[in-house]
């Protein structure tokens, strides 16, 4: 599956630059020790933007749950229908979710709760994004 190309903007550039380097980083408020994804302009707990930094994650998580997309608005993905769309909970904080097509897992054969590992996949313009594969 080839996703639309991504053009990073100021708020999320560190996330995408890290992905190009094969690293998963998530924004953190160091004052609250609270992770944010998607990144925010200010911490949703303390309201400050002064303590926002980026922290590298282990790249491990679990499948929260999933759906199977049969009717997709995105033109570049239509030839791959139907496909899995899962929400991944990071091991560092299960409140942080990322989407995944679960490459390698057949549609609708998703093991809910299973462990997953991040990989990095190139989009149409070469910008890499995190994807997740079931371990074992």
């Amino acid at each position, binding site marked *: 599956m080839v996703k639309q190309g991504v053009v990073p903007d100021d708020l999320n550039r560190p996330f995408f630059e890290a992905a190009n380097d094969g690293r998963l980083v998530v924004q953190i408020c160091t004052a609250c020790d609270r992770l944010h994804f*998607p990144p925010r302009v200010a911490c949703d707990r303390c309201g400050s933007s002064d303590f926002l930094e980026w922290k590298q994650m282990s790249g491990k998580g679990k499948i929260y*749950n*999933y*759906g199977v*997309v049969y*009717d*997709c608005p995105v033109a570049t993905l239509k030839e791959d229908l139907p496909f899995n769309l899962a929400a991944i909970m990071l091991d560092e904080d299960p409140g942080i979710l990322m989407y995944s097509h679960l490459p390698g897992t057949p549609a609708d054969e998703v093991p809910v709760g299973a462990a997953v590992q991040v990989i990095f996949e190139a989009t149409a*313009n070469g910008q890499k994004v995190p994807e997740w594969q079931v371990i074992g």
Partner: protein
Amino acid sequence: MTTQMAPESMYRSTEGLGIWEHRGKVASVGIGHSPTARRWDGKPETSVGALSILALRKAIADAGVNPEEVDGLVLVPVTTTGAYWPADQPVPMDAVNAFNPTDDPLDGIGQLSAEWIIKNMPELTNVKFTMYAPGCMSAAIVVAAQAVGDGLASNCLVLKGWHNLEGRYNHGGISASDEVPGSFAINPGRTLWGAPGCFGTALQFAQYCTKYGKNHDMMAPFMQNSRRNGLLFPEGYWAQHRPEQLTPEDYLSSRWIAKPANLFDNDIPIMVAAAYLFTTADRAQDMAQKPVYILNHASSRGTARSITPTLEEVEAETAATGRKIYEGAGITAEDLSFENMYDGFAQFHQFHIEGLRYRGMQPGDALDFYQTDISIEGPNPILASGGNIGGGRSRFWMHTDCMQQIQGRAGARALTGVKPEIAVSGGPMPMGGNFTVWSATPD
């Protein structure tokens, strides 16, 4: 007159506010609906502006007030079901110029301003208060109720119109482009991963089924009941254009959009407008219809921690909404005769009614409840209006039904298993919506 968006201070969105200060002092007395259509046919007389004028005039006549007595107007300026006027297509000036236009040619066709309404309803000679509400009728009702209670208007029209253009919404624009901004790629809602509109709700429903041991098939009685009730709603799209019952087999064999959400779990976008007339409880005594008193309004303003709301976040928010609804109205769940909570994705509804603790439901109970008698003839009616699944996407059938049931003019849809005295309606989203408690009496 410049019209502003309602300030957040007009909404009751936190717990602990106590009884609403205007409890029982505001009433709805007039209802007006336009006809429905699947899409706009390009004619001036079927534009969202024309439908809105029609609905407003019906509401005024229904209430039995003179138009010059109307002094307030609350409306939703956004009218799209998802598609905006295509930038590469000329605006149909014949339709625009069939009315008194404003500076924006899309006014009355692809949006609605208070200025456009006033310019095209010359009988409204005394409107001193206008205000916008975001999104849905549910928000406009809350703003109008608060405005009348606060004395900003005495006879206030409340309006929501919808336009539905050709094409499939969300399939053009950024969805068709080769590149997207990083903020689009990873922000909630539509993303790089191609989530259709119903995906977030489908994901919550999938987790609901995992957590409570339920399955999609268990939605069938609810869907059948909603279509049945919708077909008894003569103002609705299905009743007017496609009077077809929905069988469990029809529902369960429908194609998936984002499994576990299928085609019928998504409401059908339509052209339609509705208007209500709100007034003070005192003035309502002299009007043509039986007053329906507003005991409270409450709003949810939940935010997801991450890329999409989880089931756990939804359940916490709907429970808080239920508490706010009851606290401000001074009632409990046991006082509800019936409910009309939102269903624009069918799988929203169980979250809303479990949050209400309707008929003693706890989280995870609703799909079992759907297997019992949930008809309008029984003691535990579910979504008496048929909602948006039963009537098409208006997000206002629920409100109209609450009023009509309490006024005793719901026709073939009239509840017979309960006496309609107190009801709650609202939506849309469990994480963000506006809700109203309606009553046959002011106390």
